[in-house]
């Protein structure tokens, strides 16, 4: 029998009992639909996070925080006047303990560390397009304290220059209109005025140059300001006489590689040195890696449900094909009497299983793409409107094809038992009696 004929015959056999095939394919459909959606969800979210990492990470910065307390002795810790302060408020970036100037010095002393800048929390009351704007031309502004550690996803302009002495600011995209600029390009190079309250509760203003306009993102909300502007405001807001304490510091590395490139070994060495100084260092990738691990875990659990559905479906295929073999006992006997080889009989039935698998998985995947694209589009314009660049469900052709192929393989494996039974059938047994 020609291979082409085996395929057409298997396909026709699959459709011989249409209802049975449809019902069997339906259970595969559910599995394929779910699996396509969960993998697309995983791809979509991970793709977004990866892009965020790319926009954020410069690869040569480490976030330095106090090491998590390992003191497990009973009772309260003894007071050490030279020790670290405790934070008064919860801090998502670090532990409850704050860094002090000694910690910064210790970090600066580590090889490969170029400079260390503490992340200083500043609060800005308002921003206005020009200095003498009336109260109604002023807008609230959140400053992103970690804007110094990475790059932003720019719409226009350039990144902040952390080493520049000029006062620089990166505007969030939605401030462009409000501050009276015609578009993002127009805002770049303009001067804006920031209003803040200093330690003496006096209202102060400072002028800063807009160097760029940034897209809002999951990990960088608010406006970015460079080190010079941060220092200007932070110094004014620092309570006199109180020792300096910081939740996080940023260590800028200077690599040992060619052109001062920072290698993975450099990062590891600095991390080890930081650990010796009772500090912890994390790259941006480390932080986002945790997020990705969580996402991958969730997707894994969802996919596991789909796989359970597929396993259930595979029993359906076994059952359907066993019935099919049973029904066609005499036909099989006849074909074998006429010289059909066992291998071809096996091929005929296992291919029938594959056809059912292809049917269920292809329709399931297509339906998932259709429904998923609609959901994605709907979500992007409503609940996820604040996260531009996030495609909730990302259907990668390779993944969809993989899902279909995997299901076809499952179907084939389910077909092995019935097909073997058919192949091993004794033609005389099948032909002898009614």
């Amino acid at each position: 029998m020609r291979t082409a004929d085996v395929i057409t015959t298997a396909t026709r056999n699959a459709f011989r009992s249409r209802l049975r095939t449809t019902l069997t394919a339906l259970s595969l459909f559910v599995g394929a639909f779910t699996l396509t959606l969960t993998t697309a969800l995983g791809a979509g979210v991970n793709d977004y996070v990866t892009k965020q990492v790319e926009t954020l990470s410069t690869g040569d910065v480490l976030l330095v925080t106090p090491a998590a307390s390992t003191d497990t002795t009973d009772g309260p810790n003894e007071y050490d006047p030279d020790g670290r302060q405790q934070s008064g408020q919860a801090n998502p970036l670090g532990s409850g303990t704050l860094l002090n100037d000694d910690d910064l010095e210790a970090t600066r002393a580590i090889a490969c560390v170029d400079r260390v800048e503490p992340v200083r929390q500043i609060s800005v009351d308002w921003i206005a397009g020009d200095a003498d704007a009336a109260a109604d031309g002023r807008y609230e502004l959140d400053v992103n304290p970690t804007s110094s550690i990475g790059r932003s996803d720019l719409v226009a302009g350039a990144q902040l220059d952390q080493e520049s002495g000029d006062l620089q600011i990166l505007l969030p995209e939605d401030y462009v209109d409000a501050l009276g600029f015609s578009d993002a390009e127009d805002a770049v190079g303009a001067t804006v005025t920031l209003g803040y309250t200093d330690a003496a509760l006096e209202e102060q203003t400072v002028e800063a140059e807009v160097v760029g306009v940034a897209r809002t993102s999951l990990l960088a909300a608010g406006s970015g300001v460079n080190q010079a502007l941060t220092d200007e405001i932070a110094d004014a807001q620092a309570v006199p006489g109180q020792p300096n304490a910081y939740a996080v510091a940023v260590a800028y590395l200077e690599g040992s590689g060619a052109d001062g490139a920072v290698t993975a070994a450099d990062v590891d060495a600095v991390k080890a040195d930081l650990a010796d100084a009772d500090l912890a260092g994390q790259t941006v990738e480390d932080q986002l890696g945790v997020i990705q691990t969580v996402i991958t875990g969730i997707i894994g659990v969802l996919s596991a449900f789909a796989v359970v559905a597929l396993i259930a479906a595979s029993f359906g295929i076994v059952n359907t094909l066993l019935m099919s073999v049973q029904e066609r006992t005499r036909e099989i006997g006849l074909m074998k009497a006429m010289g059909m080889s066992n291998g071809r009989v096996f091929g005929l039935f296992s291919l029938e299983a594959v056809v059912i698998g292809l049917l269920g998985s292809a329709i399931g995947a297509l339906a998932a793409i259709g429904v998923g694209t609609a959901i994605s589009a709907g979500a992007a314009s409503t609940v996820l409107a604040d996260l531009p660049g996030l495609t909730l469900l990302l259907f990668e052709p390779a993944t969809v094809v993989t899902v279909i192929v995997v299901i076809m393989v499952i179907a084939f494996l389910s077909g092995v038992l019935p097909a073997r039974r058919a192949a091993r059938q004794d033609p005389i047994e099948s032909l002898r009696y009614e």
Partner: protein
Amino acid sequence: MTPAAAPPRGAPVIRAVDLAKTYGSGETRFDALKGVSLDVQHGESLAIVGRSGSGKSTLMHLLALLDRPNAGRIEVDGEDVAGAGARTLNRLRNERFGFVFQQFFLTAQQSVLENVTLPLLVAGVAPRERTRRGMAVLESLGLADKAKNRATDLSGGQKQRVVIARALINEPDVIFADEPTGNLDTATGRQVEDLLFGLQRDRGITLVVVTHDEELAARCDRRITIADGRIIARTDAAASVVTEGAAR
């Protein structure tokens, strides 16, 4: 050795020597054939008769290479097939033999043409060629107008003709027929017999017919009678020579 051209009329196409076939084992062990030897001559018609359960079908299946004997050997064109692999046997059956069974064994969901061309499908003949040859055979059996019908829509006699068309399509040397008229009324049975003997006469096809039917057996060139797994009589119908008790 097998000659390239078909052997001349009179040479054995199939020779069986001391065939024994045992079913089951232990308590249920049953010797269906206990040493059967016979020659099937090229171009002849051979009837295998005997009571129900005597081993006729078992013998035919062995001769048709559908089953292997427990002892004895079978030669096709003088060559022992005991050592032949499944592939060779499949090819032999596909190219040299045609089968007509007591039941029609037509596939209900397929058309008459598809049923008839099944041996060609198995042989790996291209679709176009299958259709051409299928139509030619149906034409010769007066069934061309039924080609597109579903096989189940035919009368009993038509069905048996379709079955014969299927047995004929690969232009076999030997047609094995197990009770070919068992399912048909006398008149239709007669038509089918005429058809088979016509093929034997006109195309030189060897016929091996298992039957209960005395009249059908009488029309064959030779007959062997089986009882309890042994040949108890060989009759050369043409010469009217009866050899009683010719065992082994």
